[in-house]
């Protein structure tokens, strides 16, 4: 199992790639999910956001052989909480 810092960096990087925002834009202001949808050119609504998390989960699975269950979160959730949730899920270690 990778350490928490490494996992967190990986998750943040994948979130940035999949929502189409850089780290400063996404994490600098700790955007809510509603703000992520509004600012990303790639996103129309919650279904796009769900897909971005699914891609990030698949990347974790490929890289670390960990299956993260996708969360259903309210749109006022800050992105930092989603990262923490992913890390916690990784630590619970549901192997593929």
């Amino acid at each position: 199992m990778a350490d928490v810092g490494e996992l967190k960096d990986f998750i943040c990087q994948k979130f940035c790639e999949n929502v189409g925002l850089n780290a400063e834009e996404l994490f600098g202001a700790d955007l809510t999910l509603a703000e992520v949808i509004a600012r990303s050119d790639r996103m129309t609504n919650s279904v796009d956001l769900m897909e971005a998390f699914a891609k990030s989960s698949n990347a974790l699975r490929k890289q670390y052989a960990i299956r993260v269950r996708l969360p259903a979160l309210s749109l006022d959730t800050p992105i930092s909480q989603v990262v923490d949730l992913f890390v916690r899920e990784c630590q619970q270690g549901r192997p593929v």
Partner: protein
Amino acid sequence: MAAVREHGLVKPALLEDALVRMSGLVESPAELEPPRRPTVVVDLYRAFKEEGRRLVDITWDQHRLHEARRWSATALVDSVRLEQLTERDRFVVWSAGKAEMTAKPSADRMARLADKECRRWVGQDNVVASIIQALGTWSRYWNEEEAHHETSFTQLAMRAGFEPLSDDAVIEYRKVFPDDDLLRTVTMLAFSESIASVNYGQYMRQVTDPGLKALFKHVGADEVQHMQYFISFAKALVDSGAYPAKEAFAVAHFFLREEGELYGSAREHVEDRGTHINWWDHLENEAGRTAAAPEALDRKRSLILHSLRRITGVACASAEEVEDYWMDLVGC
């Protein structure tokens, strides 16, 4: 694991009867008489691509079915004996009226989106353009049929003693929905109609007044027919290859997942969307509890999985299978 299946060649009329049963709108087998009416074209892509059918042919089919299914809202509302209604009946009627208020902006969005997408495909893939134009054309019948539902319930609620919705409330409920990917939109509407049909079946079984029972039954049967149309359009989009099946799976997962749309107003957190109103998020009290009853949720899941199979050709037996299949389609 989900299995890929051929689309079965079930007779459309038999299929519709089976779906009406799945929705819980049939109380005895004798109610299903041999159909003598036109049916929804279940393989629209093939109709345009291989059978050489034209938009005017499909439009005539749509019109015949629309006419064959018409019923009088005025007569049915007049047939309800108000003194027979319980408090719960009255409240469900009022709630249904508010929910149906959102059908018009949904259909208005459908017409706008269909026209925009149709123009995009003209000259690139004329079969796809025709499929989408057929969808846009049909949306006028859908809109008109939904008007029967809305006006029946809102009028009945007023007769039963509820304050009329204010103009401000009506205007709020009429917010035209924002655009989304076309396949997602049509798939979502297939699910929305299936959920509505189950709710009306639930309400129908709870009431004793024959007039109100008949009203719920007619509205529920309309919703099943609308579901059939949306399945047909979504399947045609997938069959054309122009719209990836992944989007239909995304919507199915969005509904079926834990705390998903399927659970509507029974969820711990209901999103406050400034852009539009999803009716299933706003069923209050008894109407919401009835919609979230375990047997109702089971029927809704079955209809969503059924719709997804017909749209994509992939059979999933559970929400988990849908999620797994969708995750595979999404990739990294």
